[in-house]
């Protein structure tokens, strides 16, 4: 049982939960994730460990509510509990040891780059973060990333920071200064676009993949991705891979395996909530 000790809303559908998990808080490293099962009967889902406080024994989980399971999770309040948290899982990020790194975060992927940016800064690497969202209210973790270095914010509608996509801002950074490595996490099309942009210049580009998982320990093979033509398991071989070798089309395709099911589960949840509300009135 993992009590929730903090909760805040980062964007219209992204929530930050601070949860007790002393062992994981002590030993986790940037890039690692946990498998969370919110309650008895709930689905197991992978979530990046966005931050940790070893003294308080807490970890930070940043959850985008996009389905039944994630909506249930963000409905939990301080004082509530998450039933199961397993981890830390996956390989830790191979951090640059010196030089200049650009961390690119799209949407909730920004939560995954935060611990990477923090780790790079601790290692003495200069960090530029490029983050984006549809509009101002969708931009998350700007202040936290600001503590690790310079931050460039983009919004699709130009309501905040520079107008346009993160890829355009990244292109400007690459054009104007030397970049030794890029860490890019976000929606599949974004990661693919970043990888295509950095490929000609041969800039080492790391992406963190988020395929469907069950156990997170290599036993189910559901999270298989194709990297350099070879099948790899994101849970134990990743979640981070060389962005220039990842088959993003396959990743995007496999993420849609349960789309119909997810839609139905979400509708069931909303119907149940509506019925509860009606009964309460």
């Amino acid at each position, binding site marked *: 049982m993992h009590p929730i000790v903090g909760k805040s809303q980062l964007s219209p559908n992204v929530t930050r939960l601070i949860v007790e998990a002393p062992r*994981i808080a002590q030993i986790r490293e940037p890039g690692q994730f946990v498998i969370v*099962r919110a309650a008895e*009967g709930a*689905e197991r889902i992978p979530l990046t460990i966005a931050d940790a406080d070893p003294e308080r024994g807490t970890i930070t989980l940043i959850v985008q509510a996009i389905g039944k399971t994630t909506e249930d999770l963000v409905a939990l309040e301080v004082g509530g509990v998450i039933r199961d948290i*397993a981890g830390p899982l996956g390989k830790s990020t191979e951090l640059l040891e010196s030089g200049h790194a650009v961390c690119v975060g799209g949407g909730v992927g920004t939560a995954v780059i935060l611990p990477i940016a923090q780790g790079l800064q601790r290692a003495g690497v200069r960090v530029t973060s490029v983050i984006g969202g549809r509009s101002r209210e969708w931009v998350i973790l700007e202040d936290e990333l600001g503590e690790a270095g310079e931050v460039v914010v983009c919004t699709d509608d130009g309501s905040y920071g520079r107008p346009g996509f993160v890829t355009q801002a990244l292109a400007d950074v690459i054009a104007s200064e030397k970049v030794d490595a890029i860490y890019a996490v976000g929606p599949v099309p974004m990661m693919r676009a970043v990888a295509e942009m950095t490929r000609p210049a041969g800039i080492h580009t790391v992406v963190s993949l988020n395929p469907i998982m069950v156990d997170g320990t290599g036993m189910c*093979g*559901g999270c298989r991705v194709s990297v350099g033509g070879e099948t790899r398991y994101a849970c134990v071989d990743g979640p981070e891979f060389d962005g220039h070798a990842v088959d993003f089309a396959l990743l995007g395709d496999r993420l849609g395996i349960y789309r119909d099911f997810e839609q139905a589960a979400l509708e069931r949840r909303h119907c149940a909530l509506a019925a509860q509300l009606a009964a309460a009135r």
Partner: protein
Amino acid sequence: MNEPARQQPAPDPRPIEERLDHPVGERAPITPRERMTILRQLMPEQDPDDRATNFAEVNLGFTEKLAVIEAERCLQCKNPVCITGCPVRVNIPQFIDLLARGDMRGAADSLLDDNALPCVTGRVCPQESQCEAVCLRGKKGDPVAIGYLERFVADWANRHRDGATVAPASSGKSVAVIGSGPAGLTAAGELAKHGHAVTVFEAFHAAGGVLIYGIPEFRLPKDIVHDEIERLEALGVRIEPNAIIGNTYTLDELREQFDAVFIAVGAGLPVFMDVPGENLKGVYSANEYLTRVNLMGAYRPDSDTPVLHGQRVAVVGGGNVAMDAVRTARRLGAEEAIIVYRRGEQELPARREEVHHAQQEGIRFELQVAPVEVVGENGWVTGLRCVRMELGEPDESGRRRPVPVPGSEFVIDCDMVVVAIGTRSNPVLTTSAAGLNLNQWGYIEVDGAGMTSIPGVFAGGDIVRGAATVILAMGDGKNAAAAIDAYLAGALPAS
């Protein structure tokens, strides 16, 4: 011993079945000649048409009457070869004799003393290749239904728990068991009986290993596994879920915190076919498919965890896992569920009862057939391209090696493929532990006592022997517990 009672001639003209209806003491004894005329009792089972649409247990279990009749078939051999046929050396004639006499408590105590998980083994052991294979009654006719009797006695014991389990006096020693499958649970139970403080570390959120995530409800109801685990907990065994050794804790840390360690993590990595199209949507490893359905409960319509409901499902493989997967697909509504296996029916490694049950449930068998490609459209599986096989020269396993028939390719139309061709060792623990010797396949090397290259660290089950059966893993757990007990007493030198 009340042997004389059995040797007296019985001039009772009524049929044996009727006489056995009466309590022991009120009935005339059975003559040896009569004993030989009793036929093997049949296991009552759910109707095949009904059960192909539900997840309730297929075998319903013997009634007490059936059990007593079957028990009377046992010859009580002076040299009970059945015991040597059992990997955990259950004293089979003893519990059967007590059962025949109507001493249920005695039979239960005898069985539980030898076997930590009899409700499980009574259901999933391949008895036909172990105890029942050597039963003397099988030389002429059918062997005693030892598995069915074990299940009956174990289920009786479960229903009649006195609740007053006394945790044994503490030995002052502690043991870490890694993995809560059959090997780990058996070792934990044995070690707890000796008073050692046992902590079992489990990667999943629930204990039981393959008994929980792998074997389906219709073959091994999960309530039974929970009951067995509760009994271990009553003995003082502590279970820590969500603990992945190699990630959450290291083997070195456990070695420092405990007096001994038993590694029983199984062979948890799925093997795929390595053919084109295997990453199409609709291709599952058996591990993933069964875990979604069993551990995560995806067979229930309101489950939070999704699973695909294929209409035409091809399951590649011929073992128990393949049978479990194909029968699960059938229960989830597959109009056609097909086993695709590269050898013949005689070579199917599954328990005979599982093959029989599958046939009864309308499973189609494509035998001497090997997949060469998963065919798809828009990213989804639409078929399995296969080639027919003929049996050539015997291979290293002694079985005739299947070789492809040129020009015999054909496509099995299907919308889902489950790959159940085996598992291999998972490197998460083994590669994170310095000094742990592995063989060329990544399995842990142990000495005759089950100790690894690290003193005080033992290993058993599939992570040592490669993918095998529940009962062999339990045998390893039992042997390792005895070796650990000796090691903790200083009777086993650190190798």
